């Protein structure tokens, strides 16, 4: 073997089985004797194998790519999958997380509502009695009902859950007030200006007109003297001076104003708009004119607008009274027709009228 080149060539021929039988035997003998040559043979063999394997694999890859090109992948894909497959997988995967998130959200909502007092039904602003659902008018009115439960307690008597005002229809114990004042009541009491309480029962309610008629059933009740005021049948005029007496607190409060519109909230023809300052608790109070005629019942005010209170027209009180079946009543309900207040000054009018105006306490 003269040179390395020839040796390698010889090895290659040997590996490719190109030698004659004698040469092959001779070379194998040389290989057995000379470990350096043997190593070279092994090395060369491995190298050649690797090169060939590399070649075949490159070719295989090319063939595979070619075969892949022949495939119609889109149609295979269409054949495989229902379209929501992926979506459902995602839903499945995040089901647990979603459940936790949802529970946290629900707990937070209820905790917030609870802590802000949403469930506290005693709040006066949530009292919805006077929303005139029959007209489908959404009212942003503030009910003039007074929550008196947060006032300091007076004596052993449990203060009412709600309060309002009422006034006598007749001298024998019939009282008119707003329906929303006595709505959902367990029991109703009225208290006169001297602080005497009488139990009453509801004998007639008209949610549409927001009118309720009560009767004093308490045996301790003595008949009032004849009523000083009357109920005006006809409509009143714009600009008329009016006043009301009510119980926004535990004592009677006088307020004065004028009739500012012949219709109420949203053009409601059941009520007048009155420019008068009234507060929760004035609901059910009488609206009187200069002559001492009752022209309406205070029932609400509008929150966003200055001086817009509303009063139910007296005409509807008369209609409600007429609607009560007289036969079912223990005492006759006859309305007073004689006004004894016209011509008196305000202060004298008040002195005459104060005994006929009651605080309505609702339990």
């Amino acid at each position, binding site marked *: 073997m003269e040179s*390395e080149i020839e040796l390698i060539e010889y090895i290659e021929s040997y590996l490719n089985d190109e030698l004659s039988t004698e040469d092959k035997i001779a070379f194998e003998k040389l290989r057995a004797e000379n470990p350096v040559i043997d190593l070279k043979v092994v090395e060369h063999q491995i190298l050649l194998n690797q090169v060939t*394997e590399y070649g075949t694999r490159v070719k295989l890859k090319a063939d595979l790519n070619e*075969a892949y090109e022949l495939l119609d992948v889109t149609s295979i894909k269409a054949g495989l999958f229902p379209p929501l497959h*992926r979506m459902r997988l995602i839903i499945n995967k995040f089901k647990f997380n979603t459940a936790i998130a949802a529970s946290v959200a629900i707990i937070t909502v209820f905790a917030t509502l609870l802590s802000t007092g949403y469930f506290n039904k005693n709040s006066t602003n949530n009292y919805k009695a006077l929303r005139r659902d029959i007209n489908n008018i959404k009212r942003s009115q503030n009910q003039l009902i007074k929550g008196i439960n947060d006032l300091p307690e007076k004596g052993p008597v449990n203060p009412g859950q709600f309060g309002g005002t009422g006034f006598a229809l007749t001298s024998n114990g019939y009282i008119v007030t707003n329906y929303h004042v006595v709505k959902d009541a367990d029991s109703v009491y009225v208290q006169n200006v001297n602080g005497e309480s009488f139990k009453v029962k509801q004998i007639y309610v008209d949610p549409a007109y927001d009118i309720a008629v009560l009767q004093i059933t308490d045996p301790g009740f003595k008949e009032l003297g004849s009523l000083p005021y009357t109920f005006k049948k006809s409509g009143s005029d714009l600009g008329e001076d009016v006043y009301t007496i009510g119980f926004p607190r535990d004592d009677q409060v006088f307020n004065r104003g004028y009739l500012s519109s012949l219709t109420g909230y949203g053009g409601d023809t059941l009520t007048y708009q009155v420019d008068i300052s009234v507060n929760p608790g004035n609901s059910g109070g009488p609206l009187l004119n200069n002559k001492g005629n009752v022209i309406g019942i205070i029932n609400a005010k509008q929150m966003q607008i200055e001086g817009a209170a509303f009063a139910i027209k007296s005409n509807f009180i008369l209609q409600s009274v007429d609607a009560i079946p007289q036969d079912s009543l223990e005492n006759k309900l006859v309305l007073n027709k004689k006004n004894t207040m016209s011509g008196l000054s305000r202060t004298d009018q008040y002195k005459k009228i104060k005994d006929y105006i009651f605080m309505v306490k609702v339990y």
Partner: protein
Amino acid sequence: MSKKINKSELVDAEIIIGIQKGSKDSLNSLYNSFYPMVLQFVLANNGDEDEAKDIFQESVIVLYNKVKSGGFELNSKLKTFIYSVCRRLWLKRLNQKSRNSASELRDFEEFQAVEYDLEFHQQKDAQFLQMEKALMHLGEPCRTIIEDYYIKNQSMQEITEKFGYTNADNAKTQKYKCLQRLKKLFFQP
């Protein structure tokens, strides 16, 4: 009445023989029979089309190596073998991407243990990559000479003409030098 038999899907044994011979028909047949299954599997487990293609190619290479080394006995369905290999390869890839840390794989077929085959495949793969790297570092014209002579089985005469050597001896010397360098690159990277 003669019924035309389509050259459609070959049975498992025919495919394996075809692969041994390196026939393209058997590769096409492999794709037609098994690619939909693999595509479905990969897509259902957070993969896309390209990844399905890669995985399937690799599984065919595993099969090829196994057939070539004579170790393939048809003791299970070819379908199960391909599916198992793909499943294993995909699991490995998902772990690398760590996309699938918690949830289980969604399976569509039954599968068998193929760890041994994959180990063998990994060895082969490493050798392949090493050779690829060695050839890449070898540079031209050495690489082409080696490839032409040892892979494409061209004669020394053709190579001499192609590269414009004055005679076959020069070409031989050149080839020898290239081979020595390749040997060095391959064994002592």
